[in-house]
């Protein structure tokens, strides 16, 4: 599918009736629909096995959809995967990278396969400083890095790619509060640059700090999707637990006045 000039300047990520049924019959995603605009941070909440990572895998073409489409900049990932992936950066839950390489060597490799071949050492240094990694660790091997430092490298790689959309799969899992806070600040700055950010997470508190839009995914279905502004003053944790406990809409609505 070709890019469409007017909408795609804002619409970066789209799930259209996105469905995935695995070969063993498990329905991981059931006709979900959502869209992420440029400058928007979309948070997908959900328990283990809800289908959050499956959605990301469909955007990255690691899986073929059973039905529907995952679009990046209007390009269906499963039809033109290489073209679609030019417009998206990805940060995984546990960024490992190459342990024998330094931070700069890792950045150099991933920047190059991301299509950026003209970066110099200073560019890598600037982006590492931006994500909060001091200069004295830039030439250290990744195997000596903590998880928080590796996550920062991961986000630095995403920044270097300069893609219009960023997919983050549980990026704050296992980070200490300080590292988590720094991470959220980074996401905020990326959003300010107009990036469309999709983040799957269990971390309601971090999500609340930063999200523009919330969605709750349960057993492959989006059971709630609301702009953050609609949730102002609401107890998001209670709402989430009630949704996850399978409360019906009316009881949830009674607690917070939300409509799925």
């Amino acid at each position, binding site marked *: 599918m070709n890019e469409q000039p007017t909408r795609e300047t804002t619409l970066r990520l789209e799930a259209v009736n996105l469905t995935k049924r695995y070969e063993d019959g498990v329905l991981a995603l059931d006709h979900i629909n959502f869209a992420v605009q440029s400058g928007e941070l979309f948070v997908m909440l959900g328990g283990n096995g809800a289908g959050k990572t499956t959605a990301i895998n469909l955007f990255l073409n*690691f899986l073929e959809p059973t039905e529907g489409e995952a679009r990046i900049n209007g390009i269906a990932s499963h039809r033109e995967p290489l*073209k679609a*992936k030019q417009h998206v950066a990805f940060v995984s839950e546990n960024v490992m990278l*190459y342990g024998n*390489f330094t931070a700069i*060597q890792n950045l150099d490799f991933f920047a190059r*396969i991301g299509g950026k071949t003209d970066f110099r050492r200073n560019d890598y240094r600037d982006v590492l400083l931006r994500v909060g990694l001091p200069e004295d660790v830039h030439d250290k091997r990744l195997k000596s890095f903590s998880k928080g430092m590796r996550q920062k490298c991961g986000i630095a*790689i995403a920044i270097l790619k300069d893609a219009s959309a960023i997919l983050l799969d549980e990026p704050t899992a296992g980070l200490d509060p300080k590292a988590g806070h720094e991470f959220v600040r980074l996401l905020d700055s990326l959003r300010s640059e107009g990036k469309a950010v999709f983040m799957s997470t269990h971390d309601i508190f971090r999500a609340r700090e930063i999200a523009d839009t919330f969605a709750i995914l349960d057993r492959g279905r989006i059971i709630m999707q609301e702009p953050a502004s609609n949730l102002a003053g609401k107890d998001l944790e209670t709402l989430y637990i009630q949704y996850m406990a399978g409360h019906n809409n009316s009881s949830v609505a009674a607690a917070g006045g939300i409509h799925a």
Partner: protein
Amino acid sequence: MLRTVIDKEVRDIVTSTKFAVAFGVCALLIIAAFYIGATHFKVSQEQYEASKAVNLRQMEGVTDWMQIQQHRIFLPPKPLAALVSGVSNDIGRTVEIVGHREITARDSKFNEEPIFAVFRLLDLEFIFQVVLSLFAILLGYDAISGEKEKGTLRLSLANALPRSTYILGKFIGSFAALSVALLVAIAIGCLLLPTLSISLTGEEWGRLGLIILVGLLYFGVFLGASVFVSSLTHRSSNSFLLLLVMWIMTVMVIPRASVLLAGRAVDVPSVDEIDAEKATLASQLWEEFRADLSGFKPSSNSQADIEKTMDEFNKYMDSLTTLRNEKIAAVTDRLNESRRNAQVSQQRLAFDLARLSPATSLTLATGTLAGTSLDLKGHFLEEALAYREGYYDFMEEKTGVNMRGGGMFMRMSHGEEEPDPINPRELPDFRYQPATLAASVESAVVDMGILALFNLLFFAGAVMAFLKYDAR
């Protein structure tokens, strides 16, 4: 983008601990193989010269060429045989020329020094076959599954990086990193040769270059197999286990099992059976010969014509011996040919079956190029036969007697002065001519082609498997 993946792969391998350890061990073994080979060659060279000297010395003082009881020729040692020993230590290196019996080679290196038969000499072929293949597996078993476990595969393929480019880069990168390391070790080994006073001819350098090429092709097979198996599994421990089983099958089981199967399928009469048949015939013909000998009738019974009578007797006996030898030769040829044909069929079947394993192609190709393949024995005996013909001509020229017929010769002495001793150095020199480089390459090209085919198959398999690989 391909270059980026290749660069990454080279750096990733070269900076790993397992590479440092594997390369260290491999380099040490290769250099040791060159050193041991060179030393072994020098010792063999000295033994060869000593044997030749002893052979001539035992003829010293002999005054009649007819009195030579023993004349032996020896297979000269070759430096390449010390690097790729093949069967060179198993076959006899000495051939007795005097007489008309069937030519056989005896006194093999392992016969003289059986300890080496138990613990074979460390040579390049052994290092390629066993160590290098394990080295390739050790460095390639986690090529894809390891990247998946680390999470770097997912991150890499989240980019607009075609999978075919990724796997091609992986293959080229790992092959380049490992083969350059290997070539460095071999180069050091080659530099050792002149320092140990071993000089190779231009042709021998060419052969060594081809042997190394075959080694790299073999190495590529195991590297390709490692990447292929790694593209089929999702855990590096599983791919390592599978590759270990494959290694045992290809290096240890298939070549040996093929020989056993071929032995069962094609029956080759033993040398003892053939010898027993020959002995029966020889004994029967000897009886006939003795009976015929008693039928000799001289043309004159005069004492004065004793010399003429001796001459007639010699001629009569010569004709009988020739007849007897022709009969023996005909039967012997038939028996030998039948055994040789069965042996060739068995050998061909064994090799065809064994070629399912790349280790067989490596052994056959390197042996052929080094001149130490199974053909070495046959070639040496052919050369020895040709030499014996020259020897017979020489002896006929010196004595006037055609020694091809064998048998007994009687010579009358008239009480003349003792003649001068013969000069054994007049004997024709045995110059062993190994197969030409062109002939060796022609023989080795099939196995080199098989190795190249294995490379292609594993690479194609790896690409096919990786295109469908679940990178999640």
